[in-house]
């Protein structure tokens, strides 16, 4: 945004508060967690990916035991 387009200070503040809430708070359905430090995504954990990976490891281990 250019300086000319920038809304008055009070509006900026309320906009900041709204956007902060919309992006960082609220219900997550997909079971993914984003750890953000200084608004930088540090870790993005896809739980479905984790679960399926664990399942794969179990299968491999079981297959190995049977061989």
């Amino acid at each position, binding site marked *: 945004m250019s300086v000319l387009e920038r809304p008055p200070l009070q509006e900026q503040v309320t906009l900041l508060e709204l*956007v902060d809430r919309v992006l960082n*708070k*609220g*219900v997550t*359905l997909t079971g993914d967690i984003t750890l953000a430090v200084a608004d930088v995504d540090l870790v993005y954990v896809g739980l479905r990916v984790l679960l399926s990976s664990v399942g794969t490891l179990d299968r491999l281990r079981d297959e190995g035991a049977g061989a």
Partner: protein
Amino acid sequence: MIHVYAFAAGLQKLPARAGVQDGRLEKRTIAEISAVVSRASAHPAPGSQRDDVIAHGLVVEALNELAEAVLPVKFGETFADDEAFAVAAHELLSDLRGRLDRVRGCVEIGVRVTAAAGDLDVTASTGTGYMEAKLASLTEQDAIVTALHGPLERLARDTVVSSSGIHTAAYLVPRADVGAVQDHVERFASAHPELTVICTGPWAPYSFAGDESS
């Protein structure tokens, strides 16, 4: 794609506004709970995300005035189709009921207190001098924060504090008590002109909708 805005209990009607990508708001039902969604393209126009984020927030805020209880959904929760969304929502159903009960009749009030960076610096000529000055400064700061936070915590049904600035917190407050919260913050701000004090709201209960326990 299905874009999700919020879950709601006792939703009277959908807000008369457009959603992300100017999409039309639609209602889905999961047992007795409503979900507000809109159809969205998987490939939004570049640069439109900022407008979409704001549109999403405005829909949630409008919903907060049209339902008994609203649980904002984080931006970016999209699903391939209605079926995928329904499956995910049903998995959360009992959680959602509990959370809706928790926020019913309440709004979120945000408080931020900061100071110019230089104001908090401590200078000293010896290590011991630094430690003593730092201790005095932090003790004073803790007392100031307690004076602000204590009464607000007592007025609120729930509180989330974050480690940002001197004090940043979200308070889940019954609608009738918003005025009392505002008065307290105003009095505090007047008593501490050296601090920057901001109080915003009433918001939908974003900070109390997720599964983190406070």
